[in-house]
């Protein structure tokens, strides 16, 4: 079963071609990596998947359903969660509240429930809070529930953002450079966390610059360069792929 399918996707910003003719399938239960030099179009690709931008050509489906024309919040409701390259936490809110916002799509309380604090609202809140605490424990940051997100250490903030994304119980989790700024022991923990997330049934698609981490973690990797997919395969294949070596090290003299 394919969670994500891209067929011939192209995106231009004026004269600049950010992505051209990208075709990509991500199988359910995979840990899929997208790598490529700076400006290769990796983040643009993520932004197409969550409807920050609209693509110009091709088609994108999630779980077999085309996402053409859907809004960011509709796509979130289809089970796509993401983290951001430069963290976008709700800084002046507690870690717990951050995760509880992530659970928004799972809750059913409507405006009237919220106004009148009905039984449904209270019941959902209690459950949401419990799940949020569990999630914080799962990503390894329990003990900071009541602290403001902005006061947490960088590594903790990264994990908190992952917890917020997981709170929606997504089928596809997009991680935009999750290891950026982490030290080597934190990276190590991140690898086991991402594996645990996948083992919990969530497909993971990640953009990363850290080659060692990607090669170690991902089962399948696609390489972008100047907006084109130049290679796709298992880590071993990618490592030896001549075009990948060329893209990263330059053409042989």
């Amino acid at each position, binding site marked *: 079963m394919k969670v994500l399918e891209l067929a011939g996707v192209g995106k231009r910003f004026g004269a600049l071609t950010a992505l051209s003719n990208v075709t990509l399938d991500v199988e359910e239960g995979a840990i899929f990596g997208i790598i490529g030099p700076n400006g290769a179009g990796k983040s643009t690709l993520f932004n197409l998947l*969550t409807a*920050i931008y609209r693509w110009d050509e091709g088609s994108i489906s999630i779980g077999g359903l085309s996402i053409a024309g859907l*809004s*960011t*919040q509709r796509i*979130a*409701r289809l089970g796509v*969660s*993401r983290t*951001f390259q430069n963290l*976008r*936490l*709700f*800084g*002046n*809110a507690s870690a717990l*509240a951050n995760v*509880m*916002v*992530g659970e*928004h*799509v799972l*809750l059913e*309380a409507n*405006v009237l*429930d*919220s*106004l*009148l*604090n009905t039984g449904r*609202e209270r019941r*959902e*809140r209690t459950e949401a809070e419990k799940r949020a605490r569990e999630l914080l424990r799962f990503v390894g940051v329990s003990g900071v529930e*009541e*602290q*403001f997100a*902005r*006061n947490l250490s960088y590594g903790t903030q990264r994990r908190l953002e992952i917890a*917020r994304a997981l709170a*929606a119980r997504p089928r596809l989790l997009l991680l935009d450079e999750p290891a950026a700024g982490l030290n080597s022991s934190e990276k190590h923990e991140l690898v086991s966390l991402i594996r645990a997330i996948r083992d919990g049934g969530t497909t993971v698609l990640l953009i990363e610059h850290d080659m060692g981490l990607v090669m170690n973690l991902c089962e399948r990797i696609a390489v972008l360069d100047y907006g084109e997919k130049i290679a796709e395969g298992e880590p071993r294949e990618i490592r030896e792929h001549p075009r990948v070596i060329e893209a990263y090290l330059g053409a042989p003299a």
Partner: protein
Amino acid sequence: MIYTYAFVAIAACVAIERFHNRRAKATIVLILAAFLAIAPRFYGNDAVFSVLADAAVYVMLALGLNIVVGFAGLLDLGYAAFFAIGAYTYGMLASPQFGLHLPFWVLLFLAAALAALFGALLGAPTLRLHGDYLAIVTLGFGEIVPQIFQNLTKYTGGPNGIAALDVPTFFGHSFGASVMPYYYIALVGIAAALWISRNLRESRLGRAWMAIREDELAAKHAGIDVLRSKLAAFAIGASFSGIGGVLFAAKLALVSPDLFGFQVSVLIVSMLVLGGMGNIVGVVVGSLLLTIVNSALLPQINSLVDATFHTTVDLSNLHFLIYGAILVGIMLFRPEGLLPNRERRAELHHAGEAAGDA
């Protein structure tokens, strides 16, 4: 006398902020409610309760605006428009203007619904605006609405407004000339507004507002319907001032467009800034303080000045100067307001200090 009531109420609010024990807070609220309900039988006169009833209306307005500005983070500088809509609902439907004399109690709810409707209607065009742009557009709406009431002379009495509004009745008993019924209704109104504000803050919708206020893009990615949540904030916030407007109009037995000008919007925003935006108790304190300054302290100082220097100056012209001075002073010395919530304090101070507070 007015200061006694104001002092008790404000002291209770400060105590509620200081205590963290739920039961202690509930006890203080109950004692304060009992005091405000019973004390008027023994202490005070009509003049005092007239000011207090007005203060209570302003507390409701401030709590309503707090939902828009404090919770959802949408700077609305035209909030008085909904106050006007509430007041004119009563003015037009319970007066000789059209010969309609709908009951006060029905209009209370009708005005809330109408204000909510207009809150959503006037909010809709602003949904994609942020910060300064939103403030300017809402400022415009705040000017337009009283202008419309002024120019629709045929229906609204134009610049003179509508006078001789119906005196409300309660199970056949007329309110007469007493201000006490308004005082009590406004107290119940505040209680309801406080209850709803607290419900909302802790709710799914409240968390959605927090997310929008903090990072709209991240909120969208969490599946929050940003536009609908903002509309809900505009509508709910406006409904409070619809009720406030009916109370205000019925008590004054008069509506006219100049009662709902820009200065009212500024006054309410000042109350939020003074008390601490986003914090329910802080907003109550801010609005009480400013109303007391406006309606009691300034007139007293005015007469004192006149008596001392045998002059006839009108200090009410200085209101704007005073709001300005208050805002500047608060911004300089306590930008988070007198009784801020944790979020606002954290936002405006260094991370280290906020951690110490938390």
